[in-house]
């Protein structure tokens, strides 16, 4: 096993995300980075994970063309269950089966709330984004939500303009008070700079891990508030050469995610 010395921050993010997954887990997976991350995990250390998508898809194998989003035609002929949203968002997610929900996000705030609706005022936004899709359901219902996005400072406001997907709302027990189930909520935010988790008491995001190329200072600059750093903050292992080879050659041979950037998420104006 040799560590790679030639990898991008996006590749590091994907591999860090995949490391959160244990073999055999049930995942409900959103569009963009979560797709390639979970397929990479399935291809490597977690072949027996089950991947569920919001439109009614349960995948146990890797499609021969990588899906660009969770409604991509290529998933139809590779799934073991293919029906409607009540099959996955209902009888799997609302029923509490997923170990992890993977989401992309435009903005994430101090308490893990996600905004994919708009920047500025909701009734007359400065920039209108797509909206929730199933994201609000993932965030409302899943035991452990992992959000993946490119780390740019403007993506990490202290408070998002619009809570599309509830995280811990105002921290502490405000999530449970709003009616969401105990034992659900954000587990980690994984970016191109590091891995961020949430304190059990205040439910505030903190720096858990940063990547070998980076530094705590650089990471802290990536947030619009003064993010706390774990006392035993960790440095992630870099990807191995084999991991990078599999990711590039086997998972994304057309370069849809890694080269052509078809999956880049909107950040701000």
């Amino acid at each position, binding site marked *: 096993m040799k560590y790679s010395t030639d990898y991008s921050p996006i590749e590091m993010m994907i591999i860090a995300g995949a490391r959160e997954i244990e073999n055999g887990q049930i995942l409900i997976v959103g569009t963009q980075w979560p797709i390639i991350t979970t397929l990479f995990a399935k291809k490597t250390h977690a072949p027996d994970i089950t991947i569920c998508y919001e439109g009614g898809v349960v995948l146990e194998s890797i499609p021969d063309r990588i899906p660009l989003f969770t409604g991509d035609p290529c998933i139809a002929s590779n799934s*073991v269950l293919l029906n409607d949203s009540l099959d996955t968002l209902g009888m799997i997610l609302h029923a509490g089966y997923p170990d992890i929900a993977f989401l992309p996000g435009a903005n994430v705030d101090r308490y893990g709330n996600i905004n994919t609706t708009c920047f500025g005022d909701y009734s007359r936004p400065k920039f209108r984004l797509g909206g929730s899709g199933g994201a609000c359901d993932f965030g409302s219902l899943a035991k452990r939500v992992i959000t993946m996005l490119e780390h740019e400072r403007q993506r990490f406001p202290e408070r998002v303009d619009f809570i599309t997907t509830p995280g811990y709302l105002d921290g502490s027990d405000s999530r449970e008070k709003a009616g969401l189930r105990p034992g659900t909520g954000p587990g980690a935010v994984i970016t191109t700079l590091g891995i961020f988790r949430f304190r059990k008491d205040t439910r505030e995001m903190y720096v858990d891990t940063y990547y070998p190329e980076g530094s705590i200072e650089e990471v802290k600059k990536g947030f619009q508030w003064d993010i706390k750093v774990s006392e035993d903050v960790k440095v992630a292992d870099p990807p191995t050469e084999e991991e990078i080879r599999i990711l590039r050659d086997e998972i994304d041979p057309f370069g849809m995610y890694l080269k052509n950037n078809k999956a880049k998420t909107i950040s701000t104006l």
Partner: protein
Amino acid sequence: MKSKIMTMDKAIKEFVRDGDVVYLGGFIQHEPYAAIHEIIRQRKKGLTVSSCAGMIALDQLIGAGCLDRVITTYTWNPLPKPAHALRRCMEKGIPHEIQMEEYSILSLTLSYFAGALDLPFVATKTLMGSDLAKNPSFLGENKLKIIESPFNGEKVCLVPPLKHDIGIMQVQRADNFGNAQAWGVMGDSKYGINSCSRVIICAEEIVDTEVIKRDPGRTIIPGFKVSAVVEEPWGSHPSYVTGCYDMDWRYFSFYDKATETLDGFENYLKEWVYGVKDRSEYIKKIGKKNLDALKPKPWSGNPVDYGYCAQYQEDYVS
């Protein structure tokens, strides 16, 4: 992934526990008679059995003394004749008193639906005014609630999510991992079987996962929810499985006459349940000629296509 294939004997031993809340799948067809007979043979006790619309499954389990509580909408010998063991139990407490919680098919299916999704409840306009609504049994206050709708003030009936410790159902085909496909009259089965913590799938045929993947729209429950898969052809006899075998009317007629008295019922169990080791012995006892008479004339359609392009269009990639 590890195969979940096992014998019926082992599946029932391992996954059905005394006192469990058991869902029996199948809406007339797909009823798991092979599993039910094994439950009786293993003398399971104190079960609560939930079954929306079956034939003589509940009658046999009640008569054999496996049950303490039932959730259902009806129990009937399909001729239609009353189910004798049910009658003896409800009218005379034989072999022991049981409690029966009764709904209508729609309200119970909605309760299974709420259970499968773990919804807090579902509101409906059925059931109100009936004595079913006014006579809760062991579910008591939680059988249903009649409230005024917060939207428009009209009276509505709320049914709770019904969930089960273990669900058992016969299907047309499944793979080793429990991805199960079924078709025909489905009734409540998809919602019921998805409302269970543990699931035993009894399949007419075990197929390769590739067969499942060639028509994933048929799958009613994903394998990851399934604990055990039992290959059990003819597992729903004397009821039917669409495309596999027709209903054995003569057997129901025989059962009706055979179980009219308590002695007759005991003798039926001795001969057809305790007296056979497993389903294959039961089937041998039915006999090839009788089985052949139940084989359906084929009725199948065009397969549907799930294809897509294997590559992206070139100038989108570049």
